């Protein structure tokens, strides 16, 4: 008997008390919890996102979509970034005025090569206001998971209000489990030493979020 059969047989014996007629989807799970907490206007939801991102030490910027290239250029310059990794489907206008040399995200690049890059600029799949969370799903404007992990500086653009949802229950139906997802709430952090929070251990130590509003951003 394989271990698979052994374990499954043990499970079945252990569950002898479960009535035969009870199906795997019985009884229904009570889902009377809220889909979203409180009622907010669209502007208030975006405001809450900004507040919660900042609360977890992300640096939040707001701009009109038209001003995005200038803002990204300035943020990279202020950081002193000489190189920036760029996902394949990022809107080329976003980096049109940036002086940093652009490094395309190529599957053949090693993690060590990526480690030498200063910054990364991506879009996102959506952002969750109640938790201050950005979700990346590997879409063309976000690239592979490693590019937002290894460089020490991440600029993430959220198109508001289209990409903003209120809550975790509102986020999941808009995400596809088949895609690899990364949920980011503030920069990398640890509280392992006397529960003192320290930002930046292995992931980017600086997370800048640009909330870009207006038609051109979509």
């Amino acid at each position, binding site marked *: 008997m394989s271990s698979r059969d052994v374990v499954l047989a043990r499970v079945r014996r252990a569950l002898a008390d479960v009535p035969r007629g009870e199906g795997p989807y019985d009884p229904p799970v009570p889902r009377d919890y809220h889909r979203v907490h409180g009622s907010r206007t669209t502007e208030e939801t975006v405001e809450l996102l900004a507040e919660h991102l900042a609360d*977890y030490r992300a640096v939040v910027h707001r701009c009109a979509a038209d001003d995005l290239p200038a803002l990204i250029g300035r943020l990279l310059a202020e950081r002193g970034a000489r190189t920036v990794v760029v996902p394949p489907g990022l809107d080329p206008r976003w980096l049109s005025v940036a002086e940093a040399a652009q490094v395309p995200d190529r599957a053949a690049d090693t993690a060590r090569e990526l*480690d030498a890059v200063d910054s990364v600029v991506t879009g996102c799949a959506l952002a969750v206001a109640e938790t201050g969370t950005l979700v990346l799903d*590997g879409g063309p404007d976000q690239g*592979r998971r490693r590019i937002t992990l290894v460089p020490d500086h991440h600029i993430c653009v959220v198109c508001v209000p289209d990409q903003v949802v209120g809550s975790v229950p509102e986020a999941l139906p808009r995400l596809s489990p088949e895609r690899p997802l990364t949920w980011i709430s503030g920069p990398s952090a640890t509280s392992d030493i006397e529960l003192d929070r320290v930002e930046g251990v*292995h992931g980017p130590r600086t997370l800048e979020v640009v909330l870009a509003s207006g038609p051109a951003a979509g």
Partner: protein
Amino acid sequence: MSRSFLGMPAFPRAAALSTRDTRLRANLTHATHTIRDKRAGAVAELDDWAQLRAAGAAIKDRTLRHLDHYLERLEESVTAAGGRVHWAADADEANRIVTRLVRETGEREVVKVKSMATQEIGLNEALAQAGIRAYETDLAELIVQLGDDLPSHILVPAIHRNRGEIRDIFRREMGRWGRPAPEGLSDSPAELAEAARLHLREKFLTAKVGISGANFMVAESGTLVVVESEGNGRMCLTLPETLISIVGIEKVVPTWQDLEVFLQLLPRSSTAERMNPYTTTWTGTTDGDGPRTFHLVLLDNGRTDTLADTVGRQALRCIRCSACLNVCPVYERAGGHAYGSPYPGPIGAILTPQLRGITGPLEQSLPYASSLCGACYEVCPVAIDIPEVLVHLRERVVEGGPVTRRGARVVLKPAKGHAAERAAMRAAAWAFDHPGALRGGMRLAARTRRLHPGRLPGPGRAWSDTRALPAVPAESFRDWWQRTRGGADRSRRGGVK
């Protein structure tokens, strides 16, 4: 790591030592009080916490009651997504499977995400015996590993260490495992974290094999979920070519939608945050992004035995948030090592004896490592009635009875050392069945009350070492009632109303 939880002394002996360690108690009191206050704030932000908790418990219960169905469904969807599923009935088998999988890659080093399941099965030690070095990459696990120490908390395994001790460990040990600690390393948490960053980055950038557990597995989609804070998890889950995840069979949830409940319950209960900094989800393998090979090892190791106990089964709902540790007066004083298992605190006191069986002195002592104050039940995000299971397991220890071990029904013998308790209970049962004898006994006790010692002699001595004996009143309740009809006479005279 050379230390092991196995063969540790029973809880009272271990706790008698640890409670005398004043530095440990100071570190623990600071840490548990900080996090329990923060948690209360994070939970208070959600006015539907009670409903989320009920939904979390219901989803887990339903999954456990049909675990065979959900495991088969999970296996199907993981396989369809390009993963390979392995089944391990016990710790040895899981360790053999993982060792073989690592050997097949030709590598001798692996990077690890913090994982309770791999602690439970002693994977690092098993890999070391096969000549494979496993590097812990969670900062706290790194502190534990470098210090040749054992974890003492589910969420913050190095909670028992303060910054000075951590600095000393880093200075002394980092060089033996890889990049040494920077010159003049101070004890500031920021500098210590930076030292860990530099030390571990060497490992991440060259690692070919990553090993993890998982917080959740979604049956319908085959998705695995890891929540973490530092990014070491993301490093191990996405940079290596091969990923091996060892996950307890109870970690499965039916649907993608179910994550909406647990991704609200877990971070707020655990680190007291609205959301942990990083969550990674993956489904099998993805071309060009992340590992090319993914293995999932489904671990039983006592879980089906726990499942067979209809009272104890609820322990398998646990999502390892550690909220119960931080509110427990016993954990706060005794520390995590006294529990002799990677699962300390109230949840450990019910999980360890069930996973391992209530056969050894340590496992028999754990159901007593509690004051039954109920704080653990109050904070549990999936409403595990820990006190109920503790009392149930105490009964098993004292009385013995039917249990399941490795899938087979066996009858457990009563534990040694509880004979006096059993005799006392039998005597009490007889007395309550014989009212005349009970009345006579109570009158005798009342008349001799000045002669009663402050401590019990013989087998009761240990019990009264830590407890004050109740004073015997001058008159039994029954006699008082007979005489006064419940004080009715006095109230008619205008006394107490």
